[in-house]
């Protein structure tokens, strides 16, 4: 008759395959040894997290530096201190062009009633934004027309342009009549694209002279132009005095950041170096796990010989050691991830930057580390699977 043995059972093992339990047994029995074995992967993982995180923070800092170095658009706010048509306002384009600001033009928004007018003359009020432009807009290379020319707008009586967004959104077309402040206007052109002024794509555009005649309260009065590279900040600081020598405080001018191309190039340079370091870290982690796992298998060859002698197949031992190595890799990856995040937080606090967490890496690192561990353990697993039990046991 069988007697119930007083055997310690590990909670939660009933549903696991026995082979998996056999693989995890040494890890449960010696968790600290597992941690030490996985140290290589942990260091590699921490290095990856730190590298990518610091790289992210560096990029943010770089963006700021590069923006300051490469901005060349200067935006001048004329909303305060001037009445519509005042001299500084009317002369802004010419003054700023003389100071070296290229493609400079002035614009503002009008608060006037606009309405669609059908063929029968019926007016349907619309909520279209209305923008006035100075003739210097025709020098802008970043604003493209799909229909008409700037001359059509500034030399034809009762002409307006519309943005391509209004065409798509409200079905307006060239030749349509719309009402602006009660005056009928004909659509003579379409603004197709505008890199620096996307608001124009959803606006009705008027010549500045027409806008001044229609009156209304102007909003967002501004002149924009481009300085030579690196001179935007200098020019921006000089613009208030140029436009309003008596009351420079009424003019606000600033350099508009646009450093994307240079930033991409610099980021690529920085990232390439970091990726090399990261790849080397992974390789070192791989080698450390491989060596540790191989020496562990060699140390326990009698146990593997024994298992083979009681019926374990080579594939089973390969699986067993592979699982162990994968778990060691995953544990190392998690430890390294935690250490890396702590390190990142510390670096961010030290450099007074917002910590950048590479979420893709955070999610992908544990399975990647498990894979690295499993691959690193393949040599050891193959050694365990090859053991010849009888010869080994008789000789040892």
């Amino acid at each position, binding site marked *: 008759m069988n*007697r119930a*043995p007083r055997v310690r059972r590990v909670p939660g093992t009933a549903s696991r395959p026995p082979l998996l339990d056999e693989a995890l047994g040494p890890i449960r029995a010696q968790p600290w040894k597992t941690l030490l074995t996985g140290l290589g992967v942990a260091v590699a993982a921490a290095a990856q997290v730190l590298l990518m995180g610091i790289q992210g923070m560096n990029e943010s800092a770089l963006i700021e530096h590069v923006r300051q170095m490469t901005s060349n658009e200067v935006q001048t706010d004329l909303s305060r201190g001037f009445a519509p048509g005042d001299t500084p306002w009317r002369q802004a384009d010419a003054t700023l062009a003389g100071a070296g600001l290229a493609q400079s033009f002035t614009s503002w928004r009008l608060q006037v009633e606009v309405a669609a007018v059908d063929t029968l003359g019926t007016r349907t009020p619309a909520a279209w934004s209305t923008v006035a432009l100075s003739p210097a807009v025709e020098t802008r290379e970043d604003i493209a027309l799909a229909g008409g020319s700037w001359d059509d707008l500034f030399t034809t009586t009762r002409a307006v342009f519309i943005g391509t967004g209004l065409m798509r959104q409200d079905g307006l077309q060239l030749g349509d009549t719309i009402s602006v402040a009660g005056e009928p206007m004909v659509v003579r052109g379409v603004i197709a694209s505008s890199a620096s002024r996307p608001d124009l794509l959803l606006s009705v555009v008027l010549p500045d002279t027409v806008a001044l005649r229609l009156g209304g309260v102007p909003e967002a009065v501004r002149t924009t132009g481009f300085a030579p590279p690196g001179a935007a900040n200098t020019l921006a600081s000089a613009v208030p005095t140029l436009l309003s020598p008596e009351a420079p405080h009424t003019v606000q001018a600033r350099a508009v950041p646009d450093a994307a191309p240079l930033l991409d190039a610099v980021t690529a340079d920085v990232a390439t170096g970091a990726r090399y370091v990261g790849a080397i870290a992974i390789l070192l982690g791989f080698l450390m796990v491989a060596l540790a796992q191989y020496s562990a298998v060699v140390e326990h060859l009698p146990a593997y010989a*024994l298992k083979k002698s009681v019926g374990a197949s080579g594939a089973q031992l390969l699986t067993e050691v592979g699982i162990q190595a994968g778990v060691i890799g995953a544990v190392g990856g998690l430890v390294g991830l935690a250490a890396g995040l702590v390190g990142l937080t510390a670096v961010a606090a030290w450099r007074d930057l917002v910590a950048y967490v590479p979420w893709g890496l955070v999610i992908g690192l544990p399975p990647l580390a498990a894979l690295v561990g499993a691959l690193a353990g393949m040599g050891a697993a193959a050694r365990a699977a090859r053991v010849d039990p*009888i*010869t080994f046991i008789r000789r040892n």
Partner: protein
Amino acid sequence: MTEPAEPLIEWKDVTKTYPGRDSQALSTTTLRIDNDAHIAITGPSGSGKTTALNLLGLVDRPSTGRAWFAGTDLSRASNRALTRLRRRIAFVFQEFYLLEARTVLENVTLPLIYHGVPRAEHTDAAMAALELVGLADLAASRANQLSGGQRQRVTLARAVVTRPRLLLCDEPTGSLDAANADAVLDIIDTVHGQGAAVVMVTHDPRAASRAPTRWGVSEGRITLGVAA
């Protein structure tokens, strides 16, 4: 007239030569081991006993000749098929290898894990095997707490837990005193009585005398029917 029963193992002109060695580790051998065989093999060190055990235990394949196990032609069997057949064979070694940090029950359960036996059946099967060797009371003890005789009985329990068709014993009493050796040989007799064939390599005349059939090995040649 009834046909003779199919043998458990049959060799025809089997030889074994290892790469890099001039001489044959095992010379041309033809033999037959029946399902109820109880054979003792004796011979000096280096005579070819290990080679014979490897071949009988399906750990190695013959270099030439043909061999069958339970009707399966081993020269045509895949490695996977060999692994399956090997699970019908149990080994007992002189040095009674156990996993020291594990309990007696866990040691005896070990083969069941690799044989794919459901976990629910492990404890009952292992306890039955421990009952057979008289160590059920020590199921929860650590292997490293056992005496030499107890350890060898545990290896016997581990060997029979899967109910093998062939028990291959390699000097099972070589490290035991007379009393423990007798106890182990008694258990082996019991296992044989329960239907397993037994092949025992031994230097111990007393162990050899228990077997009704005795073979000798010398310089790679197996001699069948050696006198006691």
